[in-house]
């Protein structure tokens, strides 16, 4: 028996099957973001929301350096970490893409294992390595290189960057690996045949063709890191403070309006960057991994 397969029936089916997810996202994401935005424009009060419109929170954020500097700091730290991640991660992916595929997959697997330990715990392990009573200091002390533990290693800008790199490195290597493996070998041969040497091939073929991986990294590393608060609050100290730490501070203190305003700023910035990247490069940038 043939069933009616009219256009409108088809549409209805698509609509109905998409309804649960769409409704879910609508309520749990868009409505709750809406409430957050609304609250960010109310008078700052502790424990309560007083529904009267004001820009007070935003005025304060944009005039007080105590807020501005962590915001700038956030961008600085995350930008530096992302650039370093690409610099550190690319050669690894490049190497893995050149060994035979079987070994490559095994090495990727090897790279994923450390990620199985929650990053908070790894952060803490780093503290035991770089911290005041950690490995490095006790080693240096016993060798007599220093006579007082080094403290700049931890609770600093530097520590946040190191830990971010450690946390995200596998997530950078894998998209680059997938991307590099996907470049047909014939392209390199053609370039070689046309007279290019190793370096010229790298510059003119490899680099332009890994742009999709760079985008992926921006999506899965750069943007999420802008909201990071556990790492800076565990190891960042004063110089490593980030926007996420501030948001958490105000929320824990139940000053919701102010926390909401800070969150909305973060949302606007990241959403703006994401939409810009999607507009320029298309959704395919999201699919690479």
């Amino acid at each position: 028996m043939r069933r009616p397969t009219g256009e409108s029936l088809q549409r209805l089916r698509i609509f109905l099957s998409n309804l649960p997810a769409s409704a879910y996202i609508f309520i749990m994401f868009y409505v709750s973001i809406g409430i957050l935005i609304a609250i960010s424009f109310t008078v700052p009060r502790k424990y309560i929301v007083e529904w009267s419109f004001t820009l007070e929170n935003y005025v304060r954020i944009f005039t007080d350096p105590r807020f501005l500097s962590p915001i700038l700091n956030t961008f600085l730290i995350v930008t530096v970490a992302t650039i370093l991640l690409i610099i550190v991660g690319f050669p690894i992916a490049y190497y893995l893409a050149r060994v035979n595929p079987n070994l490559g997959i095994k090495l990727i697997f090897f790279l994923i294992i450390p990620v199985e330990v929650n990053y908070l715990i790894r952060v803490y392990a780093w503290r035991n390595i770089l911290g005041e009573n950690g490995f490095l200091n006790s080693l240096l002390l016993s060798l007599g290189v220093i006579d007082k533990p080094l403290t700049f290693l931890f609770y600093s800008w530097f520590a946040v960057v190191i830990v971010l790199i450690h946390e995200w490195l596998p997530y950078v290597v894998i998209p680059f690996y997938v991307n590099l493996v996907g470049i047909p070998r014939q392209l390199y041969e053609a370039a070689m045949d046309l007279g290019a040497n190793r370096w010229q091939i790298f510059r003119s073929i490899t680099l332009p063709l890994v742009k999709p991986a760079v985008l992926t990294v921006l999506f899965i590393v750069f943007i999420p890191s802008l909201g990071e608060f556990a790492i800076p609050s565990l190891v960042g100290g004063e110089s490593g403070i980030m926007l996420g730490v501030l948001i958490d501070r105000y929320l824990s203190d139940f000053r919701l309006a102010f926390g909401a305003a800070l969150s909305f700023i973060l949302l606007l910035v990241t959403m703006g960057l994401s939409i810009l990247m999607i507009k320029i490069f298309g959704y395919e940038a999201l699919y690479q991994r």
Partner: protein
Amino acid sequence: MAKSADVILRVDRVSKRFGETWALRDVSLDVYRGELLVLLGPSGSGKSTLLRIIAGLETATSGRLYMDGVDITDLPPYKRDTSMVFQHLALFPHMTVYENVAYGLKIRGVPKEEIDRRVDEVLSLVRIRELRDRKVTKLSGGQQQRVAIARSLILRPKILLLDEPLGALDLKLRKELHIELKRLHEEVGNTWIFVTHDQEEALTLADRIGVMNEGRLIQVGEKWDVYDYPKTRFVAEFIGETNMFTVSIDDISGGVATGSWKGFRVSFKDGGFRPGETIYLSVRPENLHISKEPPRGEEYNVFHGVVDVEVFRGSYVIYHIRLDNGEVIRVTVLSKDAEFDPGDRVYVYWRFDKGVPLRE
């Protein structure tokens, strides 16, 4: 056209092994200046490997290469005066037509004005000048093809290597491009080595054909020589259609060998055979004739049979004839002479000297 004295490339006993498999076994070949040599062979016969060794993308396990008398065996690809058009084209997907074609010159640091001039020149030559600033990913198969050829031609290589460059295109487009390629080869005037597994393509394009099988170069020669005088059964069957008879020789006299094939007597030119030997006799369908009456004269092999199937092919017709010994052979007849119908009893015959006896 090609003078045998003017050898541009000499391949001297080249072999290539990949692990356990021998992709090439002891291949020797002279390529003449200005010719269009087609290497023909089934999949896996080693055509690409030979081409890649000539280009320098692969190193031979043994044997040497000489270009214009100079040993180039150990030169890297970018120091060889060859350029390759790849099986899957290998156009750079992130570049425009212009950037792809200009690539080789840019790498060599040629000044911008000269690059522009030469790109325009070569794009006109392959007739895609108007596509200059398109992304190559936005081109049709035939257009991409032209870009790939232009990208190599712009470097004015002594030898252009083409590895099944039309493999991905449909039949009609292939046929159009065959004519284009012929024209292009004549206009440019350099030496081309063209690889294909399509015998029709080979016969259309080639000056000379080299036939490969299982890593060996079995026969090289002018295309009609290879067609008319194949050296082995493989060559005879791979190029064109043929009827193959397995004949055991029992008599040789006056330069004519005679033997039997499934109850029929068959004669052919002696090639230094001995009685008792078994050979293969290849007879092309167009060298066979049919008639209702037996032919007059002594110089024919004559069989008797019934028309089984008639296949109309436009300008000619193929008849499948079931012989009295039960075997089926194929005969080609021009359409205007195709006066037979299935069921007709006919004589099939050919002149002794039209059969080509083969030892292997």
